[in-house]
């Protein structure tokens, strides 16, 4: 049974857990530096090493970040909460327990919007968002006889974002994780780098016959280090489950690892001897209270959110779905565009400039918009020059734009004047150019006069060349048609 046939018979049910490392300066429960890539075991202290007698002290910025995410997802923020201990033994967890939130997650409910397989808007409901600490890192492939432990990551603050089982396909999962990553980046609370592990995803998946009420046996997939691999692993699992069910066999409850080189998942451990994490309230930390005023204050610090901007661009500015998505892909680009549309109502042209010249310059120079030399105001000035026919679109984009990159403080109009790029609207000047073109191309002129309309392009090209691109196309084409009729 191939993938498409499978989807005619079975319905996947998918939930996703995202662990997002918060980019606070220090760790969650002690002041160790929170930074990726440090020399192993240098960003540690007796607290993160789990030495006896040490006590955790909670970083207030973690609440701020978690509340930001909660507000952005329209979740309910818990007023009174505490931390819990999740107990298990593993070498990269020196205390023997992880401080997390079991009973009182900081956020419950909430949702975000994504696109489904057909491109329609779909709501993905969240179950919860809670705060917890990361574990250290185990390295298994450097030493043949030992595993090595680096505790720099131990105690780094995380939020775990859990969806309801409402995701229905690999594409939806891809869109959901992309959207969440965008949101985390807009809020500047997590850098969303899956390769470095600052954002990690676990997928829970089962399939059931279409229309069934009872979910199938669930499997968890781990080790997903890119958004594309999340989608691949889901599509692989859907087929694997269907094959097992078609044979009349049962799906084992287990955790599976995704192998990106084969595109397959491999069983990691059976969940039969289920963990008993023996959660209980963390007695070393006081209760937390998040007041209404606190939430209101955090709300005031939120940047515009991608979905709000997307809807504004599409519905209010009348931009296409593609343009609106493209412009809101990164916050910095969107904010640049926001500055432009304060100064011009020519939204489509502004969008084209940002997505065209500006983005390709950023790509070519591997730079970000924050170091882009041309200010939004200057770029709008360029658009205005095009709008009032002072300069042709192609001269503006091919000549003026590179010149402005070099001289971002100069007025576009001055640069255009100095270089003779101002459009020639002046009929007498254009007239003499056109007449010269006629003289130089007698054959074509005769054929054009005899009604060979397809030569318009040929003549416009010659006129543009003769005027070095400054001939205003509208005026030129009008004049061209008048003059050809006067030709003898």
């Amino acid at each position, binding site marked *: 049974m191939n993938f498409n046939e499978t989807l005619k018979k079975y319905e996947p049910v998918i939930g996703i857990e995202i662990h997002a490392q918060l980019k606070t300066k220090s760790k969650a429960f002690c002041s160790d530096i929170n930074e990726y890539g440090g020399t192993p075991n240098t960003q540690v202290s007796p607290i993160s090493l789990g030495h006896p007698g040490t006590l955790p*002290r909670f970083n207030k910025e973690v609440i701020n970040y978690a509340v930001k995410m909660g507000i952005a997802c329209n979740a309910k923020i818990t007023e009174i909460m505490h931390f819990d201990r999740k107990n298990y033994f593993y070498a990269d967890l020196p205390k023997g327990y992880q401080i997390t939130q079991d009973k009182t997650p900081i956020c419950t409910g909430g949702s975000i919007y994504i696109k489904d397989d057909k491109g329609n808007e779909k709501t993905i409901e969240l179950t919860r968002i809670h705060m917890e600490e990361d574990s250290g890192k185990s390295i298994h492939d450097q030493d043949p006889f030992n595993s*090595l432990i680096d505790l720099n990551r131990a105690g780094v603050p995380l939020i775990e974002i859990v969806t309801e089982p409402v995701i229905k396909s690999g594409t939806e999962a891809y869109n959901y994780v992309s959207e969440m990553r965008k949101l985390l980046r807009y809020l500047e609370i997590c850098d969303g780098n899956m390769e470095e592990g600052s954002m990690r995803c676990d997928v829970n998946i089962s399939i059931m016959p279409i229309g069934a009420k009872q979910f199938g046996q669930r499997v968890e997939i781990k080790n997903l280090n890119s958004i594309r691999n999340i989608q691949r692993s889901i599509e692989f699992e859907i087929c694997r489950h269907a094959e097992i069910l078609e044979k009349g066999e049962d799906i084992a409850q287990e955790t599976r690892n995704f192998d990106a080189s084969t595109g397959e998942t491999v069983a990691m*451990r059976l969940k039969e001897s289920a963990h*008993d994490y023996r959660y209980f309230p963390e007695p070393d*930390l*006081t209760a937390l209270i998040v007041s209404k005023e606190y939430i209101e204050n955090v709300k005031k610090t939120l940047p515009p959110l991608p979905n709000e901007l997307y809807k504004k661009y599409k519905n209010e500015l009348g931009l296409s779905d593609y343009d609106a998505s493209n412009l809101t892909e990164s916050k910095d680009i969107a904010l640049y565009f926001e500055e432009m549309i304060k100064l011009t109502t020519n939204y489509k042209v502004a969008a084209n400039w940002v997505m065209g010249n500006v983005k390709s310059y950023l790509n070519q120079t591997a730079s970000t918009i924050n170091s882009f030399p041309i200010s939004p105001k200057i770029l709008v000035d360029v658009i205005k020059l095009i709008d009032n026919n002072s300069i042709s679109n192609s001269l503006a984009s091919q000549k003026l734009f590179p010149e402005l990159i070099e001289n971002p403080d100069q007025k576009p109009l001055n640069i255009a004047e100095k270089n003779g790029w101002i459009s020639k609207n002046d009929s007498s000047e254009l007239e003499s150019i056109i007449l010269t073109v006629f003289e130089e191309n007698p054959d074509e002129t005769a054929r054009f006069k005899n009604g060979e309309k397809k030569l318009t392009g040929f003549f416009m090209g010659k006129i543009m060349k003769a005027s070095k691109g400054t001939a205003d196309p509208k005026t030129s084409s009008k004049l061209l048609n008048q003059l050809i009729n006067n030709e003898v």
Partner: protein
Amino acid sequence: MKLDESTVERIAQLSKLEFNTEEKVAILNDMNQMLDFIETLQEVDTDNVEPLIHMTEDVNVLRADDAKTTISQEEALTNAPSKDSTYFKIPKVLGKN
């Protein structure tokens, strides 16, 4: 409530500890005594009483987000029974559990 040997084994397994038969008997005895003690406490009516989580009424005892280095790598590794100059070393594990 009385515990049996399988509970002792389960708890030993979760604690990554191993005991011989004699020890298990002693532990089972101790644990049952502890449970008897709790049983006495359970005579108190605690319906409608919120569990006490914190021994202090202080809330939001928080720290500013300032990063500091307090110990060196060498100090961090000092007490480890097995290490090199960079890492803690543990017996080889392949994947979690």
